[in-house]
């Protein structure tokens, strides 16, 4: 069964460093998303991406964040200068239109 895959599964980085989280959405899906979940808290929407551009972004998605679809399969989330409060699980999701399928997540730990 097709699935959304994310790499790495766990990333530890120093505060102020840049990180890139990678996602391979399901191949025939058109909409892509990033969400984050701070440990023990609810899942929060970051950004949606459609037709090679950002469709919507939340208040969390400030200038430190960017997304790209560098080729036909990958979808990346870049955090330019990480802060301690960026530590969270980051989920990528894709959908053909109705049901969203989530990846396994990348646990980002900023130290």
């Amino acid at each position, binding site marked *: 069964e097709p699935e959304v895959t994310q790499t790495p599964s766990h990333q530890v980085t120093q505060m102020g460093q840049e990180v890139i989280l990678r996602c391979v959405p399901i191949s025939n899906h058109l909409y892509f*998303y990033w969400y984050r979940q701070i440990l023990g808290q*609810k899942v929060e*929407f970051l950004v949606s991406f459609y037709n090679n551009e950002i469709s919507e972004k939340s208040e969390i998605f400030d200038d430190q964040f960017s997304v790209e679809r560098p080729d036909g399969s990958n979808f990346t989330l870049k955090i330019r200068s990480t802060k301690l409060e960026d530590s969270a699980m980051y*989920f990528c999701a894709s959908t053909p239109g109705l049901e*969203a399928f989530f990846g396994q997540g990348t646990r980002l730990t900023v130290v």
Partner: protein
Amino acid sequence: ELKVEQNPLFLSMQEGKNYTIYCNYSTTSDRLYWYRQDPGKSLESLFVLLSNGAVKQEGRLMASLDTKARLSTLHITAAVHDLSATYFCAGLGGGADGLTFGKGTHLIIQP
């Protein structure tokens, strides 16, 4: 702006019992989703509810939607230990692309 509230946030119950998780939302929601999350894992889609009066069932779980009351319920029948997880409801609406999640219901089913 769509707000989603779940209750209870924590539920401990015995195997064989029935219980209901409630999800209230603040404004018109185009769709209502239920997800399951096991510790440290991703979000598994359970149900997508599209219209008033929609009812969906899978095994011991049944979800319903009342758009007039802005309420969705997830009913668990004759609970078994394997259903222990955190259950999230999420709405899509208010013109937003991304899902708005509730805080989740942490469900523990004791043998």
